[in-house]
C-alpha cells in the first residue's frame, strides 16, 4: 500500500450555525478547544501510520478553523506534519493581524476565505456575520502577513439575489486579485430551516437564476481565470509566473487519491475503505482520549465503485480523463451520443483514450455524468 499524501483536519467550531450550512459544526464551546486539539493529535498519532513521511497537502476545514482558540490553533499547526500546501479555511471576520501571523508562523501557505457575497442584504439572508469590508480587510491583512495564495468562496443563487447583485459580487471578488475563487450554487436542502424560510422565494427565482452559473464562468474566464473544476477557478499559470494555483488538496480528491481525515465527522479514503467518523463531539473526544479509534462508519468500496467515483470526480475537471481506469462503469453508447451532441470530447488532441467534457457539457455536468455512468456490468 502506497503511503497517503493528503491529510484533512476537521475543526468544527463556529460562532453561529448559518441556515444553509450542512457541514459538521459545533457552536461555541471555547472551553473544549484544548481537549479537541488533544483529541486530534491523539487520533493523528493513532491513524498516522498510513501517512507518507512528507505530505503533499494538509487542509484544515470546518466549521470555522480560525475561530479555534489561537493558542490551540498554533499548537495544532505546529504538531501537524509538514506539507507542500497547507490550507486553512477562515471566516473574514476572524482574520486579525495576530491570526494572520499565527497562520504564517504555522507554515500555512494558503487561506480559503468564506466570503459568500459582498452584498449586505444577501449576507443577512445567509446569516453571515462578516460585512463586505471585513472581507476586504481580511484579504489585506493576509497579504500583509505574506500569504500569496488566497482563495475566496462565493455563493450564487441566494434568495433575493438579482442578476445585478451577482455581477457586482463577481466584480468585487475580481477586484481583490486573488489566486483562487470557488463559486457554488446555494443548495437549499429540503426540510432545513433555510429552505422553510426561503424555499418559495427560490422557486420564484429559479428561472431567472438559470443563467447565473454561465455569468460566473464567463466573467471569470474572461478575466484570465482557469475554470479547472466545476466550481473552482484559479489564475492561469501564464499570469501567475508559471505557478499551478489549483487547490492541490482538493485536486487529490478529484483525481481519486487516498486521503486521511481526522476530527469529528471527518472522512478518510484509504485503500478502498472509506471511514466516516461519527459527527459527535463527545463520543469523538472520549474515544480518542482512551487511545481507541474514533467511532466511525465504514464503507468498503469495491473496485467498480472506485472506478465509478473516478468517473464522477474526473469529469469535474478540465484535464482529460483516462478511459483506461473506467472499465465497466462507462456507458460507451452514451459517450458517443453525448459526443454527437457536443457535450463530451473524445478527440485525438486530448490524447488517445481520454475524454473531457466540453464547455457546454460542463454546465450540464450532473446530467452528463448520470448518462455516462453504467450501473450494471454489460450483459455478456
Amino acid at each position: 500500500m502506497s503511503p497517503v499524501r493528503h491529510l484533512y483536519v476537521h475543526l468544527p467550531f463556529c460562532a453561529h450555525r448559518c441556515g444553509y450550512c450542512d457541514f459538521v459544526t459545533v457552536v461555541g464551546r471555547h472551553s473544549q478547544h484544548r481537549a479537541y486539539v488533544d483529541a486530534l493529535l491523539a487520533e493523528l498519532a493513532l491513524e498516522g501510520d498510513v501517512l507518507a513521511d512528507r505530505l503533499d497537502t494538509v487542509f484544515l476545514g470546518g466549521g470555522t478553523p480560525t475561530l479555534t482558540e489561537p493558542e490551540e490553533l498554533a499548537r495544532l499547526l505546529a504538531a501537524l506534519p509538514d506539507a507542500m500546501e497547507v490550507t486553512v479555511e477562515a471566516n473574514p471576520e476572524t482574520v486579525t493581524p495576530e491570526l494572520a501571523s499565527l497562520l504564517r508562523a504555522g507554515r500555512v501557505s494558503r487561506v480559503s476565505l468564506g466570503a459568500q457575497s459582498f452584498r449586505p442584504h444577501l449576507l443577512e439572508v445567509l446569516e453571515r456575520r462578516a460585512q463586505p469590508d471585513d472581507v476586504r480587510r481580511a484579504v489585506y491583512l493576509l497579504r500583509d502577513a505574506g500569504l500569496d495564495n488566497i482563495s475566496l468562496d462565493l455563493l450564487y443563487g441566494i434568495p433575493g439575489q438579482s442578476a445585478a447583485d451577482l455581477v457586482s459580487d463577481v466584480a468585487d471578488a475580481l477586484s481583490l486579485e486573488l489566486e483562487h475563487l470557488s463559486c457554488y450554487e446555494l443548495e437549499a436542502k429540503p426540510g432545513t430551516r433555510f429552505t422553510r424560510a426561503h424555499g418559495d422565494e427560490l422557486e420564484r427565482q429559479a428561472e431567472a437564476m438559470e443563467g447565473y452559473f454561465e455569468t460566473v464562468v464567463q466573467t471569470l474566464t474572461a478575466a484570465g481565470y482557469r475554470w479547472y473544476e466545476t466550481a473552482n477557478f484559479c489564475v492561469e499559470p501564464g499570469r501567475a509566473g508559471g505557478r499551478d494555483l489549483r487547490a492541490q488538496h482538493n485536486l487529490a480528491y478529484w483525481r481519486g487519491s487516498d486521503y486521511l481525515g481526522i476530527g469529528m465527522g471527518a472522512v478518510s479514503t484509504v485503500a478502498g475503505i472509506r471511514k466516516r467518523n461519527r459527527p459527535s463531539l463527545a463520543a469523538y473526544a472520549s474515544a480518542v482520549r482512551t487511545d481507541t479509534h474514533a467511532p466511525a462508519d465504514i464503507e468498503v468500496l469495491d473496485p467498480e465503485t472506485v472506478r465509478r467515483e473516478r468517473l464522477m470526480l474526473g469529469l469535474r475537471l478540465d484535464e482529460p480523463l483516462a478511459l483506461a481506469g473506467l472499465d465497466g462503469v462507462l456507458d460507451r453508447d452514451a459517450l458517443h451520443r453525448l459526443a454527437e451532441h457536443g457535450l463530451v470530447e473524445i478527440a485525438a488532441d486530448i490524447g488517445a483514450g481520454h475524454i473531457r467534457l466540453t464547455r457546454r457539457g460542463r454546465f450540464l455536468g450532473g446530467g452528463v455524468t448520470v448518462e455516462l455512468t453504467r450501473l450494471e456490468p454489460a450483459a455478456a
Partner: protein
Amino acid sequence: MELDRIRNFAIIAHIDHGKSTFADRILELTGAVSEREMREQLLDTMDLERERGITIKAQAVRVRWRDHFLNLIDTPGHVDFSYEVSRSLQACEGALLLVDASQGIEAQTLANAYLALDNDLEIVPVANKIDLPQADPDAAAAEIAQLVGESPERVLRISAKTGTGVTDVLDAIVERIPPPSGDPGAPARALVFDSSYDQYRGVVAFVRVVDGRFETREPLRAMVQGTAFEAEELGVMSPGRDPVTALGAGEVGYVVTGLKDVSRLRVGDTLTSRRRPAAEPLPGYKDVKPMVFAGIFPTDSDEYPELRDALERLKLNDGSLSYEPETSQALGFGFRCGFLGLLHMEIVRERLEREFDLDLLITAPTVAYRATKRSGDVIEVHNPAEMPVEVDLVEEPYVKASVIVPKDYVGQVMELANERRGSFDHLEYLSEERVLLSYALPLGEIVYDFYDQLKSRTRGYASFDYDLAGFQPGDLTRVDILVGGEQVDALSLIVHRDAAYDRGRQLVERLRKEIPRQMFDVPVQAAIGSRVIARETIKARRKDVLAKCYGGDISRKRKLLEKQKKGKKRMKQVGGVEVPQEAFLAVLNLESERKR
C-alpha cells in the same frame, strides 16, 4: 317437472335502483338462504361488482314460492354487455321492471325494457324505494305504466329495503308471468345464457332448457361452435350448486362441462344431446366482437410475463375479452386488448390491477375502424399507429344513443351531441319533466369523454345508453405525435379532420409541460402524415451540476448519481429523449378523461 309450476324471470333495473337488495329479499323470503347466510347482495359475487353496484356476469338462482319454482336470472345491467342481457332475457318468459320511485326511469332501464318487450316478455312493473321521503310513487308509476303500456294501478309499490310489498311481487310473478312453453318430448335443446370458469371443474354453463330433457353423463354438443363434451354434472343454483340427475324443458340450471376454455362455449349457443340431436339451434346466436381497443403495458417492463398470465386467467372467465401482443417503441411490450365497451375496459383494468397487483399503462381507448386501402383491400384497424396514411376510405362504428334528461337540459345535450358529430334522430317526452333524446353518434366520440361531458353539462341528471348501429364513412385522419423528431407510436390517434388541430395542439402542449428539459432542445410535434400541425419546443437545460464535491461528499454524491441513474430505468427513450412514464400517463389521462 310440470311446466306450469315453473316461472322464469329477469330483473331489469338501473344501477342503484335496488335490484340486488330486492334479489336478496326474495332469497330470504323464500327461505333459499337463512338469515345467517345472508350477506348484502348475495348474487353479485365479485368484489368489484359489489363495490360498483353492478352485475357483470349473469347469475341464476332457483327459489320456491308456494307451489312454484321461480328461476331468477340476474342480468348484467350495462350496455357493454347488452348481448349477454339479450340472451338472459331470451331464457325468460317475464321480467320485473324495477324503478327507483325517487329517480324515475333511466336510459339503461329503458333500453333493457325495450329489449324485453322485443323478446315478448311479460313485464311486471315495480316501483321500489317507496319508503324514501323524496320518493314519488305516483309519478314513477305513471312513467313506468306509460313505457310498458300498462295502467298505473298495475305497478306494484314496494320497498326492497324494508320488505314492504315483496310478497306481492312474488305472487305477481306467479300470476302474471306465463309458464315456459316448450316440447318436453322433442330432441333436447338448451340455451347457454352465461358461463363461468371453475378452476377444478372447467367451464360451467348456465342454461335454460327449451325442449326435451338432459341427463347427467349425457354426451352433448354446442350446436353453433360444434364443441363436444359430456355433462359431468347437472344442477340448479339455490343459490349454491345443487346437483340434480336431469334438467327438463322449462328449467334453468347449470352444466359442468369439463371444458378448459370458455371461448369454446359461447353465450348464445344451443346445447343438444349427441344421442338424439336437435335439427336446428335456437335463434339469435351472435359472435360478439370487441369494439373498443386499448394497449395495456406494464409500467415495469419486467412484469410483462405477469401481465400475460393475468390476461390468460381473466380470459378464462371472460370470453368477450380479446388480446394480442403489441410492441410499442415508447411503452415496450404489452397487449392490444379488445373490449365490448368502456365499462368492460374499466373492469378489466381494475381486475388486472387489483386481483393481479399489476401496475399498468393504458393507452387512450380507440374503436375498430375499417380502412379501404388504395389497393382495394379492406382492413380493420384496432391501433391508430397502424392506420395506413394512404387510404381511399375510412369507416367508423356508429351507435344509436339515447339520453334521458330533465327538459331544462335538452339544449346542453344537443350542443354536446352536435360537437361530437351527432345527427339528431328524435325527441320524446317521457313525462312532463323528462325527455328522451335519440342521436346517431360515432362510437369514437363516445369513448372520448362523452359520458363525462354529458354528466357535467347536465349536472349529473342525464342518463345515457347506446346500441351499436353499423359503420359509416367519416372524414378521419391519423394524427401522430413526434418527440425529438421520432413518432411516439403509443400516442397516435385517429380523429375527425376538423378536430385534428385542436387535439394535436392539446397533446403537444401537455407533453411540453410533462417532459423534463433535456440536455438539448427537443421539438414536440403533432403531424398528419408529413405535415406538422402543431409544434412546441422543450428548451434545453442551461445547467445541471453537482455544485460541490470534496472528500466528505463523495459517497453521498455517488449515491445520488446512482439513484438518478436508477430513476432513468423508468424512463422511456424516444428520439434520444428520456420521457418519464408520468408524462405518458398524464397525456393518456388527458386523452381518456379530459376531466380537468
